[in-house]
């Protein structure tokens, strides 16, 4: 991209983060603003306006704005989406509830399954039938679709998903039903399953389509208002959005199928952690990104995070695989937990303190924000415990009301439980850390790794506050807090290569695929992807084929040589596939023919070069102040507070201590030993407990609990 500035904007449930890089010299400016609920674009525009102050042509000259958002996932987790109806092939309206009929936990007598997004009374079957070969067995009964539309309108439905059997092969009925719904239900947004996920397996397709419909209104209106606002401010280019697998798309494409953005925000965090891991030479990373609403963990090995084709949201059991709602979109394989600074603490029916998963978000927000929040949150507890400073939050731009937080914890939690305010606040801190730790243990173990092998990179506004507590629980020996941790995902948007992907299903035997047809298809896909980019861009272009033995489902990615496809290119691809197959699975003499499942074109633009400010202090900083802080054992201490900007490279600080910067605070517990890296990153050796009995957490006696 040409000289100028580029903007990264990461909108979270609580804060919207901004980074701006001057592409001429790599200097970076950052901002952090409260997310405005109901109209999330306001915070984005407000932040953009701050950058414009004194630099009026920032937007007019901007090369690009790349945006990541957690709006989709938060809408689902908080069940704040549209009232959604489902129209299916008659006889199959219960497929959302029947699911896959399997127990995700073989040993749980009291197993619970995820609650369908659409209740039974809003699921309607209509007469129509397409067969597996795509032929029409029974034409669509249009009168029944109109009747269903009226029934849904009376029920006050705001969005409708349409899922007909085999629509991935013949979408005529779904399209027609979509047309009828547009006539009958003006203003109601419709998601058609063949547009969301044109692949077989009706439950997974239906689940994805229903979730797409559920979030569509929120996303479409948000992206429209945002694009308009940017245009008014002189921005001339396209608004780019990060997809769930680190790829990029435009706002217009994102709007059509918003469920693709389900992990957009976390993907930006993964990009950022990968970038830092690469630049610091760390091989095995546990990326830990804790914001106001959720915490995200992802393993990045050798600079790359694994990708998955199906993601699960809203798992009902401890984030156990299979216990959530499936979303069939390409994603980074990460773990997301409903635990953030805004997670609300309550006393439950058993008289016990529970934390989350619902969040106070930005509005009303934690009590201490003084924006009308009445229910105490994790952030309120962090403030009461002294981990956050009432006068130093957002560099003092946003004073926190300690007295109000204290009073709320007292009234709503301490009094009903008969505990002290500090005890309850410690409990909230502990519970939220334990929630994250137990999910993380399982996630790490599923990958066959141990936390002791991983370096945690901690970021997000609440990440550095909770990182040491979490690392201690997990047994992670080292934590790194990069510069600008509070806006790191937004930085990832700028630093990461920008990738545009287009793929198409092929499903033909390799030796029966005419090379010329394949080449034409690849060129078409390339042009589609190219159209997303500015004319002067000169992206790197890569071609891939996903291949498998005919009859298998899972395919392996093989690079195709450009710029032409001929017989030898296909033969080389088959040979490469067989070699990769043998590497992965051992030498299996499979005599089945090899099939090309799909082809994909990836256009990549290099990320911006970023020069983060390095430590400039010559002498080691001394504490700027001291603050009363409650330690893990419940005792109070007078912890030294250091402004991060004053730290010198090589300086060592041993906890308890607090390192404050504008967007976040790093809380060092007793014995944690922090050294300031030359890059400005804080590298912390975690004081790990030596407890022999902690070893067998899975032996916990749940039976008699």
């Amino acid at each position, binding site marked *: 991209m040409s000289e100028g500035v580029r903007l990264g904007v990461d909108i979270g449930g609580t804060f919207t983060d901004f980074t701006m890089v001057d592409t001429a010299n790599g200097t970076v400016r950052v901002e952090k603003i409260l997310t405005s609920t109901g109209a999330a674009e306001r915070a984005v525009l407000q932040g953009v306006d701050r950058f414009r102050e004194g630099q009026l042509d920032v937007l007019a000259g901007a090369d690009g704005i790349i945006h990541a958002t957690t709006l989709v996932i938060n809408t689902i987790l908080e069940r704040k989406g549209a009232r959604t109806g489902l129209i299916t092939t008659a006889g199959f309206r219960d497929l959302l509830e029947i699911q896959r009929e399997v127990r995700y936990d073989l040993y749980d007598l009291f197993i619970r399954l995820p609650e369908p997004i659409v209740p039974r009374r809003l699921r309607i079957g209509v007469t129509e039938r397409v067969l597996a070969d795509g032929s029409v067995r029974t034409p669509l009964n249009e009168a029944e679709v109109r009747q269903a539309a009226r029934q849904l309108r009376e029920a006050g439905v705001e969005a409708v998903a349409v899922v007909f059997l085999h629509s991935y092969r013949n979408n005529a009925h779904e399209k027609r039903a979509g047309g009828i719904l547009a006539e009958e239900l003006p203003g109601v947004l419709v998601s058609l399953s063949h547009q969301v996920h044109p692949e077989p397996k009706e439950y997974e397709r239906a689940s994805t389509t229903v979730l797409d419909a559920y979030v569509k209104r929120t996303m479409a209106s948000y992206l429209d208002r945002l694009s308009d606002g940017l245009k008014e401010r002189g921005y001339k280019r396209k608004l780019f959005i990060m997809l769930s697998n680190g790829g990029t798309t435009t706002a217009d494409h994102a709007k059509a199928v918003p469920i693709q953005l389900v992990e957009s925000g976390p993907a930006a965090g993964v990009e950022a952690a990968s970038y830092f891991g690469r630049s610091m030479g760390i091989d095995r990373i546990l990326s830990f990104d804790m914001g106001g609403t959720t915490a995200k963990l992802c393993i990045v090995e050798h600079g790359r995070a694994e990708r998955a084709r199906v993601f699960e949201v809203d798992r009902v059991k401890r984030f156990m695989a299979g216990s959530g709602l499936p979303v069939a979109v390409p994603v980074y394989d990460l773990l997301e937990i409903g635990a953030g600074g805004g997670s609300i603490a309550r006393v439950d029916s058993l008289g016990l303190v529970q934390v989350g998963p619902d969040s106070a978000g930005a509005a009303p927000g934690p009590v201490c924000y003084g924006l009308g929040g009445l229910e105490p949150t994790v952030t309120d507890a962090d403030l009461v415990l002294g981990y956050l400073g009432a006068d130093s939050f957002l560099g003092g731009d946003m004073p926190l009301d300690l007295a109000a937080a204290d009073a709320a914890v007292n009234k709503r939690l301490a009094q009903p439980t008969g505990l002290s305010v500090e005890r309850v606040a410690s409990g909230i801190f502990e519970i939220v850390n334990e929630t994250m730790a137990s999910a993380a243990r399982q996630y790490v173990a599923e990958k066959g790794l141990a936390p002791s092998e991983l370096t945690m990179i901690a970021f997000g506004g609440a990440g550095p506050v909770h990182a040491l507590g979490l690392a201690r629980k997990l047994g992670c020996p080292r934590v790194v807090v990069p510069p600008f941790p509070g806006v790191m995902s937004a930085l990832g948007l700028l630093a990461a290569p920008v990738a545009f992907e287009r793929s198409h299903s092929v499903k033909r035997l390799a030796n029966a695929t005419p090379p010329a047809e394949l080449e034409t298809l690849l060129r078409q896909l390339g042009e589609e992807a190219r159209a997303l980019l500015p004319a002067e861009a000169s992206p790197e272009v890569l071609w891939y084929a996903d291949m498998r033995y005919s009859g*298998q489902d899972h395919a392996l990615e093989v690079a195709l040589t450009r710029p032409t496809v001929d017989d030898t290119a296909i033969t080389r691809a088959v040979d490469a596939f067989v070699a990769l197959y043998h590497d992965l699975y051992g030498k299996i003499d499979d005599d089945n023919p090899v099939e090309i499942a799909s082809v994909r074109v990836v256009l990549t633009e290099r990320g911006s070069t970023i020069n983060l400010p390095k430590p400039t202090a010559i002498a080691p900083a001394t504490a700027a102040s001291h603050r009363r802080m409650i330690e893990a054992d419940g005792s109070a201490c007078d912890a030294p507070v250091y402004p991060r900007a004053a730290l010198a490279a090589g300086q060592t600080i041993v906890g308890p201590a607090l390192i404050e910067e504008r967007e976040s605070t790093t809380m060092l517990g007793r014995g944690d030993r922090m050294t300031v890296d030359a890059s400005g990153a804080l590298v912390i050796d975690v004081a790990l407990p030596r407890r022999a009995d902690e070893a067998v957490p899975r032996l916990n006696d749940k039976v008699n609990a």
Partner: protein
Amino acid sequence: MATKLDAVTIQILWNRLIAIVDEAATGLIRTAYTPSVKEYHDFCCALFDTSGRMLAHSTVTTAGFLGIVPEVMRNFLRKFPPQSLADGDAIITNDPWIASGHLIDISIAAPIFHRGRIVGYTLCIVHHLDMGGRMSTLASKDIYEEGLKIPILKLFEAGQLNRTIFDFITANTRVPDKILGDVRAQIVANNVCARGLKVMMDEYALDDGLEGLASEIISRTEQSLRSKIAKLPQGVYRNDVILPRIPGVDTDIKICCEMRVEGDGITVDYTGSSGEVGAAVNCCYNMTRSYTSYPFKLALDPSVPNNDGALNPITIIAPIGSIVNCRPPTATWGRTMISHLFPEIVFGAMEKVLPERVLAANGGAPANEIYLHGKHADGRSFMAISQHSGGFGGSARQDGPATLCFPNNTRNIPVEVTENESRMMYLRKELVPDSGGAGRNRGGLGQVVEYEILGGGPDGKDQVESSVRLSGRRENGNFPVSGRLGGKAGRGYGLEINDNEVDHGTSRTLNPGDRVCFRLSGGGGYGDPLERDPARVLDDVKEGRVTVEGARNDYVVVIDPATNTIDAAATAAKRKTPQAEARA
């Protein structure tokens, strides 16, 4: 220097072993050719130490393999002791008595060689689509009718495939390409497992082998379960049942179950149960062991990962020659008609000691299974398998979820997948209101499934062979889908072809246009239905899980259908039965 096995290291390595077998399962799924593996997940991958003790099984598996897997490995080692094994060997069998109780499951194991010696074994069992013989029927009188039996043989010798075995399978089965494809996937699973173990042993410098770790894992698991058993009241608890009529069997089948809690162990004694029968429902001991041990793990110690240690505290007495420990050459294809009932029968005995930790009956046990066989339009043979579940039983804590598999644990095969694999079309697959057994906690809803045969072959007129096996459990027959602690039975059972009721479990030749319809019962309820909060009954009515009539008849809650509200006065008056009075 060898790694010291402290409490932290044991936990890390234990998790790692489970991750290794899970990766093996992923390799299996990714390279498999049939929905039986890819979707149905009827398989087990497991890892053993050098003495054949099972250390971990894949998280995705079905309960039927849990007790089988250790036996298979030990049987393999009896035939091929370590000194007879070379690197690159693989051992195969489908003998029901050596392995998993019916011919259609193939077991393949391999020694794991590391630095020149055997450090462990890997095993993968898969339920295949076909093994020849009479197709998917309870009517077989002996094992010879049921298909090809593969004795314990080396499928690979030092990396060389024994093609003769593949040739026999090809010559004896209906869709050999698919079956051999899945056999290859089993070899992949073993390769992935072996590689994972070797990496772990290098990384943690386990130079002395796995035995130390194995003993720790197994003894901790065993002690954990024993400590739970020791807290139970000592005593003898019985549950004898007469099963529903099985097609082709003239006599009643009786299962006698005596559960003896003795110190920190439990004995389940099936003495008195019926003898072998001349139909394909006989259970080999291994299968009886799986489903008899499973409910104890489920009820007493669910959070500790499963391995050999969880089997040791449970002693099973199963008289040889009875239906729960049959001898060759009895027929065994549909052995789950018996074995899938053991958890429920054990729960029946356990109900008296642990009422809070037993489930009401599952509406889909014994599991449904559908087979289809015919020709595609291009003349290729197809073989398809499918399964649908009944409602889950209510329990002390909650209503049973709708349509959830128990006690086996296989996923349904999506409608779209089965329609792509065969010549049939589903007409409906829907929940059935009022099918969940009434109770303080309701049983989960069952479902109705209907499909139509499409013509196969080039002219689109070919017939299709199909069989549907069901539970045989009717509400008013022997052994209904019972509730517990006052809960009522689940409802809805039957099989019809073109609206005529027929017997389940036999293969039939169907014509294009023939319709097959069957119902899978809801789960049993838990606790007295009159104790159910009327507000929860109203919720069920609003959601269409219970009808207005069902609310009145089963729960004595009167709901005005016009307003969807509870008629409080009428409900109170009606609920004032002598029974309710006595409780209050």
